[in-house]
C-alpha cells in the first residue's frame, strides 16, 4: 500500500494535478474565511446594539448552520444566477457558513469588553465607530480568533464536497480515485486536507498572538 502511494506521488503528472488541486483548495477555503469574517463583524456589531436584530441574526445563523453543504452548493446557482460549475457557488456558500459561525463570537466578544474600558474610551473622546475599531475590536480578538479557527477547519474539510459539482479542490482526488478504484489519490487527498487544516490553524494561532501583544505580558495565555 505504502509502495503504491509512493509510486503515485512520484509521478510528475500526478504531482502537477495534486498541486493544482491544493492551490484551488486553499483559495476555496481561505477566501470564504476572509469574506465571512468581513461580513460577521458589522453584522455582529449591529446585533450587539439592537436586541430585536440580535435575536433575528442569531436565529438565522443557527438555521443557516443546519443546512447541509451539498444542499447549499447546488441551490445557490438557481438563486443568484451563477454558472453551475463556477467556483463562486462554493465560495459564497462557505462564506455564508463562516459568517453564520462567526456572528455569535463577535457579539459575545463585544459584550465581553469591560464596561469601564468603554467608559474610559468614551471619556477620552472616542466616538462610537472609532472606539469600535480602536478599542472594542482589538479586545475581542482572542474570542474571535477561536471562532475563526473553527471556521477555518470546517471550511477546509467542506470544500471537497464541492467535487460533486465540479469545484472541489482536493475533493477531485476522491471522486477520481473512487471511479477507478484507486486508493492512493484518496489517501493523499485526506492527508493533505488534514495537513492543510493543521497548518492553517497554526498560522491563525500565530496571528492571534501577534494581534494581542497584551496577553503575553501576563504570560498566562
Amino acid at each position: 500500500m505504502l509502495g503504491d502511494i509512493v509510486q503515485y506521488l512520484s509521478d510528475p503528472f500526478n504531482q502537477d494535478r495534486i498541486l493544482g488541486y491544493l492551490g484551488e483548495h486553499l483559495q476555496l477555503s481561505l477566501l470564504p474565511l476572509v469574506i465571512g469574517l468581513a461580513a460577521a463583524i458589522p453584522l455582529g456589531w449591529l446585533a450587539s446594539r439592537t436586541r430585536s436584530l440580535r435575536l433575528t441574526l442569531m436565529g438565522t445563523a443557527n438555521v443557516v448552520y443546519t443546512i447541509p453543504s451539498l444542499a447549499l452548493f447546488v441551490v445557490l446557482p438557481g438563486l443568484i444566477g451563477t454558472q453551475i460549475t463556477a467556483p463562486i457557488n462554493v465560495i459564497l456558500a462557505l462564506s455564508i457558513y463562516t459568517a453564520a459561525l462567526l456572528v455569535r463570537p463577535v457579539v459575545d466578544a463585544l459584550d465581553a469588553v469591560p464596561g469601564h474600558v468603554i467608559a474610559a474610551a468614551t471619556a477620552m473622546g472616542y466616538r462610537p465607530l472609532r472606539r469600535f475599531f480602536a478599542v472594542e475590536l482589538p479586545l475581542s480578538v482572542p474570542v474571535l480568533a477561536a471562532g475563526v479557527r473553527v471556521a477555518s477547519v470546517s471550511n477546509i474539510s467542506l470544500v471537497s464536497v464541492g467535487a460533486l459539482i465540479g469545484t472541489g479542490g482536493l475533493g477531485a482526488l476522491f471522486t477520481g480515485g473512487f471511479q477507478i478504484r484507486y486508493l492512493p489519490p484518496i489517501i493523499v487527498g485526506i492527508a493533505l486536507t488534514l495537513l492543510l487544516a493543521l497548518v492553517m490553524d497554526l498560522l491563525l494561532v500565530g496571528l492571534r498572538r501577534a494581534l494581542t501583544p497584551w496577553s503575553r505580558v501576563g504570560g498566562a495565555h
Partner: protein
Amino acid sequence: MLQEILSWLTDPAHWSGPDGIPHRLLEHLGYTVVAALAAIAIGVPLGLFVGHTGRGGLALVGLTNGMRALPTLGLVTFLFLVLGSTQTSTLIALVVLAVPPVLAGTYAGVQDTPRGVVDAAQGMGMTGWQRLWRVEVPNATPLLLGGIRNAVLQLVATTTVAAFVGLGGLGRYVLDGLRVYAYPKVAAGALLVAALAVVLDLLLAGLQRVIVPRGLRLAAVTRRRGGVAREPERVGTDVVAGAVAREGANG
C-alpha cells in the same frame, strides 16, 4: 422557480415507490438514527470515562479536533473501496464522523462541572460512581445534548453526500437531479434535507429543555444576569467550547 419546486414536491408521482419522498425520507432518517445511536453508545461512555478520570483528556481533544478536519467525501469513498458494500461502508463512515461531537460534548460537560461542586461531593463522602452519576452526569447534560445535536446535523449532511457511493436517502434527489440538471428536483431534495436537519435540531433542542435539570438552567440564568464584565480570557474558553459544540455540522 419556486413554483417549479413546489409543483415537483406536490406531484403525486413523487410520493410513491422506492424513489418516492416518504421512502427516501425514511431511509435518510433511518441511517441518521442508527448512526446517532451507535455514536452515542460509543461516545458517551468514553467521554464520561475520560472526563471523570481526567485520563487521556489531551489526546481526546487532539483527536476530536483532527477528526473535524476529516473530509466526509474522502472517508466515504475510501471506506467503500476498502469494504465494498454501500451500506456497511457508509454506516461506518457515519459513525466515525458522529462520535467526535458526542465525545467532545460529553467530555466538555463533565469537565465543566465546577471544581467546588466536585470537592463538595467528595467531602460528603460520595464514591467515584456516585459522584459521576449524581453530580457530573447531570452537570454534563446540556453540553452532552449539544454534542448529540451536532452529531445529528453532521449525520443528516453526510448521508446526503453518501448518495455518491450509492446510498439511498434524500441525497439521491440532489445527485440524480444534478446529473440530468433537473433543477426543481435538486432544489426540492436540498430543501427536504435542510428541512429534516432543522426539524431534528428543533426536536433535540426541545428535548434539551425538558431534560436539562432545573437547577442548572437557573444557575445559567443567574450567571448571565450577574455577568457584569467577564474577563475576555474566560469568555474565550467559553466560546471555544460553544463554537466547538456548534461546529462540524456540515458534512
